[in-house]
C-alpha cells in the first residue's frame, strides 16, 4: 500500500456505516409508506424504522459494490433483507414464542399494537419484501433478480430462519448434556447466519458477481453469521440489559444453550477469532480498496459491545 504514489486515506468505517445506514433508513422510510389500513402500516413502520444497526442491508450494499455493482442495484434487496429480519423479530417476540416485552430499548410490536396486528404486520413485511425486490430493482437483468428472490426465499423458510427457530424451540429446557455443538451450530447457521448470507449473496448477485465470487462471499457470510451469534452469546453473559438495549442474561434464565455454556468464555472467544480469520481469508483476491468495508464489518461484528 505504501508503494502507491498517492496513498488513499485509511478506510473510515464509522462514517461509512453512518452514511450507508442513512441511505438504508431513507429507502426503508420511502418503501413502506403510511397507507390504508393505517394501523398495519404503522405497526410495520414501528419495528422497521426502530433504528437497528442495519448490519444486514449494509452487508448487502457492500457486497454489491465489491463485485462492481452500484448501490442502487442492491438497495431494494438490502431493504427486503431488513424487512425479513424485522418480521422475524416481531414474530419471535410474540408471547407464544420468546415472549419478549422489549426490543431495541422499545416495547415490542405486539405490546404496542396487539398480537393480532403484530402477526399481520410480520406477514405483510414478509410479502412486501418480495414485491419490493421484484418491482423496484433498477438496471439488473430479470434473470439475476429472479435468482436473488430464490436465495431470499430459501433463507427464510425451512432451510433457513424457520428451521433454526424450530430447532431452537425444541431445544428449550434441554440441558447442555443433551445439546451438542452440532445442534447449536445448526440453530445459529439457520437462525442468524442464513439471513446474513442472503444479504451478502443477494448483493453479489445483483451487483453482477460471477459464480466464483458469489460462492466466496457466501462462505464469508456464513463465517460472520456464526461469528455474530458467538459474540451475541458472549455479550449476553458479560453485559447488562441497559448496555444491550434488551433483556440481558435472558439465555441463562431461559436455560438456553449458548457457546459460553458449552465451551466456556475463553474458548468461545478463540472460536470467534477463528471465524473472523476464516471470513477475511475469503476476501483475499478481491480489490483491497473495495473489500475494506466487508473486512471492517467482520471486525465490527467481532468487536461490538452491544
Amino acid at each position, binding site marked *: 500500500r505504501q508503494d502507491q504514489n498517492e496513498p488513499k486515506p485509511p478506510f473510515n468505517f464509522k462514517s461509512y456505516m453512518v452514511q450507508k445506514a442513512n441511505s438504508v433508513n431513507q429507502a426503508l422510510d420511502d418503501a413502506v409508506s403510511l*397507507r*390504508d*389500513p393505517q*394501523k*398495519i*402500516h404503522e405497526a*410495520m413502520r414501528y419495528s422497521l424504522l426502530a433504528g437497528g444497526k442495519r448490519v444486514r442491508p449494509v452487508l448487502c450494499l457492500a457486497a454489491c459494490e465489491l463485485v462492481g455493482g452500484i448501490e442502487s442495484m442492491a438497495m431494494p434487496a438490502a431493504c427486503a433483507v431488513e424487512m425479513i429480519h424485522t*418480521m*422475524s423479530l416481531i*414474530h419471535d417476540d*410474540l408471547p*407464544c*414464542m420468546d415472549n419478549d416485552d422489549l426490543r431495541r430499548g422499545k416495547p415490542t410490536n405486539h405490546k404496542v399494537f*396487539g*398480537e*393480532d*396486528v403484530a*402477526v*399481520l*404486520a*410480520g*406477514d*405483510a413485511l*414478509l*410479502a*412486501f419484501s*418480495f*414485491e419490493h425486490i*421484484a*418491482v423496484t430493482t433498477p438496471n439488473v*437483468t*430479470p*434473470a439475476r*433478480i*429472479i*435468482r436473488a*428472490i*430464490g436465495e*431470499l*426465499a*430459501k433463507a*427464510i*423458510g*425451512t432451510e433457513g*430462519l*424457520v*428451521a433454526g*427457530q*424450530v*430447532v431452537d*424451540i*425444541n431445544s428449550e429446557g434441554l440441558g447442555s448434556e443433551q445439546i451438542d455443538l452440532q445442534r447449536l451450530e445448526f440453530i445459529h447457521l439457520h437462525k442468524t447466519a442464513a439471513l446474513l448470507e442472503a444479504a451478502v449473496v443477494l448483493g453479489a448477485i445483483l451487483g453482477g458477481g460471477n459464480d466464483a465470487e458469489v460462492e466466496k462471499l457466501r462462505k464469508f457470510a456464513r463465517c460472520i453469521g456464526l461469528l455474530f451469534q458467538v459474540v451475541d452469546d458472549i455479550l449476553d453473559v458479560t453485559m447488562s440489559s441497559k448496555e444491550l438495549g434488551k433483556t440481558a442474561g435472558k439465555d441463562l434464565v431461559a436455560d438456553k444453550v449458548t457457546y459460553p455454556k458449552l465451551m466456556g468464555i475463553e474458548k468461545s472467544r478463540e472460536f470467534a477469532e477463528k471465524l473472523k480469520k476464516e471470513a477475511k481469508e475469503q476476501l483475499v483476491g478481491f480489490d483491497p480498496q473495495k473489500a475494506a468495508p466487508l473486512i471492517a464489518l467482520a471486525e465490527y461484528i467481532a468487536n461490538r459491545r452491544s
Partner: protein
Amino acid sequence: SSKLSTQFDLKTYWTNLIGEINENLDQAIPVKYPDQIYEAMRYSVLAKGAKRAPPVMCITACELFGGDRLAAFPTACALEMVHAASLIHDDLPCMDNDPFRRGQPSNHTNYGVDMAILAGDALFPLGFQHIVSHTPSDLVPEQRLLRVIAEIARAVGSTGMAAGQFLELEGGPNSVEFVQEKKFGEMGECSAVCGGLLAGADDDELQRLRRYGRAVGVLYQVINDVLEEKTMKSKEIEDNKKKGKSYVGIYGIEKAMKVAEELRAQARKELDGFQKYGEKVAPLYSFVDYAADRGFRVGDLN
C-alpha cells in the same frame, strides 16, 4: 356462451386437476429435519377435501391464452401455499380463534401456536421459492415470472388479504364489503391474473381477468354465507353479525342474493371479452356458475 358452459364437464375437469395439483404439492413439501415443521406445513397444505380453487383458476386462465399447463403448475402450487399460510395465521387464537377448519383441527390446535406461526412464515417464502426453482425457463420468460411474484406478494400483503383480515378483526360498521373483497376477492383475482401473466396475456386481458377473478371470489363467499345462514343456529348468526363477518348477517338473504346476481353478471360480462378464444373460455364460465349454483360438492371430488 351459456350453452358452452352447460356442455362443459366441470366436475371431471376439476377432479383431474385436483389430482395433479395434489401430487405436485405432495412433492413440493418433502419431510426433512426438523420434521415437525414440514409436517405442520403438509397438514394444512394437503388437507383432505381442499377445493384447490386458486390453482385451478390459475391453470385455466393460463390455458385460455394458449399457455402450457406445465408453465402454470409451480405458480398454481405457490398460490395454494400462500393461501394455506394466510388461513393458518387467520385461525390463530389471537386472530379468529378457530380451533377447527373444514371439520379438522386447525394447525395450531394440532401443532401448537408457535409451530403454526412458523408454518405460515415458511409457506409464504416456499411459494416464491417453488415458482423460481420449478417454472420451466423455456416456457416462461423471467420478466413474466417477476410480475407473477409481485402479483402474489401484493395479493397477500398489507393492502390485500392482510388488510382484509385486519379490518375483519377491527370490525368497523361498514367494513363487510371491503373485508369480503380483500379476503376472498383478492385470491380469485390474483389466481386469474397469474395465469394470464404466465401465458403472456396483454394488459387489457389482464384487467378483465382481474375483475373476473375478483367477482368470482366474492360471489363464491356470498353464496357460502347464504348457505351457512340457512343451516346455522340463531346464536351463531348473532355472533357473526357482531363481528361484521358475514354479508348475509348484515344485509339479509334477499340483498345478498341480489349482490350475488350482480357479481355473476359482472363475471360473465368480463368473459364475453374473451370470445375469440372459443371453447377455451368454457371452464371460466363454469366457475361462475359453480360459485353461484353449487351443482355438486367439490369436497366429494377427492
